[in-house]
């Protein structure tokens, strides 16, 4: 919200490592990407993630998620993708299904974008729905 703070992807990852709810930290990044600092998108993703030492398996999974997210945001919105996201470190050795209930597993597998699935992350396709684009889309539907 505050204009003097850039909520970079690395800052969101650091917040996750410090115990913040992942979707609060990533939601803050999304607010900057879609609205508060949408004119500075390259700056929001250029900085590589700083992994904690030691890095727990949970923090490692979220690092991979942040790398996949960065590649997704850059490819979706035509922003140059920083090279750090392609580091093989950010590919998980075992599949991670972000929703545990087996009932949604097939949906996770079939709907996850490739930037995530190639890193062994299966999270579906509703991660980055946001009110800024949804509102625009609704407005367009209404006036057409």
């Amino acid at each position, binding site marked *: 919200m505050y204009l003097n703070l850039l909520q970079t992807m690395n800052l969101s990852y650091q917040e996750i490592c410090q115990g913040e709810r992942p*979707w609060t930290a990533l939601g803050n990044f999304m*607010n900057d990407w879609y*609205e508060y600092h949408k004119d500075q998108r390259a700056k929001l993703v250029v900085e590589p993630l700083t992994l904690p030492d030691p890095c727990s398996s949970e923090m490692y999974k979220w690092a991979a998620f942040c790398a996949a997210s960065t590649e997704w945001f850059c490819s979706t919105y035509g922003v140059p993708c920083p090279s750090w996201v392609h580091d093989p470190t950010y590919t998980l050795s075992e599949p991670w299904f972000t929703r545990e209930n087996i009932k949604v597993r097939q949906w996770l597998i079939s709907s996850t974008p490739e930037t995530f699935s190639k890193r062994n992350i299966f999270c579906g396709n509703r991660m980055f729905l946001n009110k800024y684009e949804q509102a625009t889309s609704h407005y367009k539907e209404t006036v057409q």
Partner: protein
Amino acid sequence: MPTEEQDIIERLSLVGDELQHMGLKRPICILLVGGAYMITQIHNRSITRDVDIIAQKIDRESAEHRLLKQATSSVAHSLNASPAWFSDNMADFFKSIGKIPHGKLWFSRGKLEVYLPDSGYILALKLISGRDKDLEDIEALLQNLHLKKRKQVENLIKKYIDQETQEEYNEEIQTALDTFF
């Protein structure tokens, strides 16, 4: 009261004061939804960047709505914050998918009255959206409302969301329900 909750109330109070200074005759009524609702009413999390609302009884083209935007922009400027901190982006969509509850008065200041819907309404909106970021809120709302059976939740959706929208968003709703039941 947690800092973030105080902060939300203080910011909304500044908006109420600003509307008063603008010489508004009748208060503007808003319904609190989204993260600010979760923080102040469900207390399951501590941080939100913005305050999502539905302005009641005024449409987007009205003079009152324009004054509301001016007031929130003025508060944003004084806090060095983005004008987007106060968001009614989804209000038209919410109005189009079902009847908006009037809610109960939470607090008033100056020429702003802030109302709260039932938490069931918030749950219905979050199930329609079905975003990953909503899942923890959905879980907290299910607990808050003591909803343990899928059928109970489906009935709640029927209460707040019109039939056409239920059909249009059936996949999203079913996937969200499958995540929990």
